[in-house]
């Protein structure tokens, strides 16, 4: 029985999982680091346990502390969310050893899919084509990788064997660019996963990144919930996802074929629970297996909105040993959903992360808008974890309606205190190529710039800035009246300094 779940995560996904538990009447246990005492997941859980300093390595990545909190709290299951310990087979095994249900796949399936080489072998064995590349298990040195590159073919990607989420990944268009790409990927992989092992993979021209959500129960039943379009990536980081893919469109045969391939891969490794099979699709709609994410995906809400299935509740249901709630024939995609990742990054300054205290948060709401967030006005964004603040998800009867609704929602959102990617998404949604659905994984890096289009209303901006400057000048004068002693040039100097700081 599962009556109390410990959520070994933080941020929006911890809050998302808490909500599913509350709705199922399951008690919840949060864990938190120093930086997260006032995080929303701590406030919203029934219980909360401190697990260490802010650095993830000393808290959210510490399996021992999390298992200790589970024991103290009397939890009987652990949901790992995404990132952190979610794809660590040893953690899944340790949960089982401690008598805790791990809400995710069996350790064996995590192991296979966590090793890119074994994953590719498993996909091949299941009859799914793979992208040409080197064997990640071989632990090739930089020199060996450089030697193997010609066989793989350019352009290519340098990828981390232990990787995921675009971290430790770099592209190289030619032999000349390879050494720098290897160096950058190596250091990022080491920092992100504690493992700098790299491999190479051919970069398909004009490819789409499309993934399939699957659900599998412990009796071996596997179904798919259709695809998600994830080609909108900046340096291999997804920024916007949709379901269905505008590229697949109403090609139901392709959708079902892709879904069946995903189910086959999952079955081949004895998969259970929710998972995602990622594909590249070339211009001729040929499919290549990329990898399988053995966990809940950031972008799972778009699938929830078009299928009406609550994936987190299904995960818990499966972990309880129940059969899937639906047969494949009962899964239907209706309408269209889009997710924008609102990160604390400055899109006008190279997506540099931004930290600070959120002073205002007026959420976009109303029909067809879903917000998954872990932040609120008064919350301080720290530099310790990833920059995802909020997922804004919009549903529409058609892709057009979903897009227009998302534009409205982005304009309604007021998030002040840190810089965010909201303006980036507003610009993206105005781009004709995006609107037309004509983009590949290279679109953001090659063909789109947030400051491309001239802004539409410079006169209003000039008036607004002048009114604020005038008001602040007045305020300075006003303050000065109360400080009669040091008069003379104070106001002037103050303004001059403000001008130049």
């Amino acid at each position, binding site marked *: 029985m599962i009556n109390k779940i410990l959520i070994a995560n933080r941020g929006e996904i911890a809050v998302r999982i808490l909500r599913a538990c509350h709705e199922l009447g399951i008690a919840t246990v949060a864990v938190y680091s120093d930086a997260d005492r006032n995080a929303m997941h701590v406030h919203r859980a029934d219980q909360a346990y401190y697990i260490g300093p802010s650095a993830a390595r000393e808290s959210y990545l510490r399996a021992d502390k999390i298992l200790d909190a589970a024991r103290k709290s009397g939890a009987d299951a652990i949901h790992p969310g995404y990132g952190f310990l979610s794809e660590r087979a040893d953690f899944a095994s340790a949960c089982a050893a401690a008598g805790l249900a791990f809400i995710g796949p069996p350790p064996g399936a995590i192991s296979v899919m966590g090793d890119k080489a074994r994953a590719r072998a498993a996909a091949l064995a299941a009859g799914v084509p793979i992208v040409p590349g080197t064997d990640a298990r071989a632990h090739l040195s930089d020199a060996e990788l450089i030697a193997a590159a010609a066989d793989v073919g350019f352009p290519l990607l340098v990828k981390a064997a232990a990787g995921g989420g675009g971290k430790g990944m770099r592209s190289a268009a030619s032999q000349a660019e390879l050494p720098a790409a290897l160096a950058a990927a190596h250091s990022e992989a080491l*920092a992100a996963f504690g493992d700098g092992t790299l491999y190479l993979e051919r970069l398909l021209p004009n490819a789409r990144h499309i993934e399939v959500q699957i659900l599998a129960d412990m009796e071996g039943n596997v179904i798919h919930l259709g695809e998600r379009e994830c080609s909108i990536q900046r340096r291999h980081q997804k920024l916007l996802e949709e379901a269905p893919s505008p590229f697949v469109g109403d090609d139901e045969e392709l959708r079902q074929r892709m879904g069946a391939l995903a189910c086959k891969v999952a079955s081949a490794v004895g998969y259970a629970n929710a998972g995602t099979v990622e594909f590249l699709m070339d211009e001729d709609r040929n499919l290549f297996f990329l990898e399988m994410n053995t966990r809940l995906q950031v972008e799972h809400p778009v699938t929830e909105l078009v299928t009406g299935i609550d994936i987190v509740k299904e995960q818990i249901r499966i972990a309880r040993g129940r059969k899937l709630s639906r047969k494949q024939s009962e899964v239907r995609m209706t309408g269209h959903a889009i997710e924008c990742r609102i990160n604390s990054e400055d899109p006008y300054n190279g997506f540099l992360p931004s930290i600070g205290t959120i002073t205002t948060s007026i959420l976009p709401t109303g029909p067809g808008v879903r917000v998954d967030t872990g932040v609120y006005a008064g919350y301080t964004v720290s530099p310790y974890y990833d920059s995802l603040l909020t997922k804004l998800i919009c549903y529409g009867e058609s892709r057009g309606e979903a897009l227009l609704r998302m534009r409205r929602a982005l304009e309604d959102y007021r998030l002040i205190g840190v810089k965010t990617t909201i303006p980036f998404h507003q610009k993206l949604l105005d781009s004709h190529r995006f609107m037309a659905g004509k983009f590949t994984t290279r679109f953001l890096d090659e063909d789109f710039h947030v400051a491309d289009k001239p802004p539409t209303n*410079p006169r209003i901006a000039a008036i607004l800035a002048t009114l604020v400057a005038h008001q602040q000048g007045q305020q300075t004068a006003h303050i000065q009246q109360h400080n009669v002693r040091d008069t003379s040039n104070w106001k002037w100097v103050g303004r001059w300094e403000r*001008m130049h700081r």
Partner: protein
Amino acid sequence: MKYTTSVNGNTYQIEINSAHQITVDGEIFAVDFESVSHQPLYSLLLDGGSHEAYIEYDAEGWQVLHRGDRYTVSVADERMQRLAQLGGLQADAAGREFLLKAPMPGLVVSVPVADGQPVEKGDLLLVLESMKMQNELRAPRAGTVQRIRAQAGQSVEQHALLLALV
């Protein structure tokens, strides 16, 4: 008070006549201008139009975020204008050095420039790891690198001086 305001290559003469009236390039408008929730979020009603914008001042000028567009606006009042015309301010401002400070706490991954090295606008100055990402800090203008205060492997606090560009 009269202001000369520039944005995106356009220049406007704006006069604040009263709390409720302004003149823009000779044309008079009724305005109703308020801050929202005591935040740098402002609501402007002008000539029937309703405009909400986030406005803050930074090193480059007034940053106005309005309906997804970001504008960098410079506002000069009469005295500043006069001083600028005399050459005092402009020269000084142009000659000032640029200080690269850490935008957030983090770990310095690499500093691919050397003391005295000339750089172009957009050249990479330093890579800082924070929030699980490697962030490339680039030169905002051409200049010469001086006073490097950071080295690879070093943890830095927010606002720590990393290097100067003269």
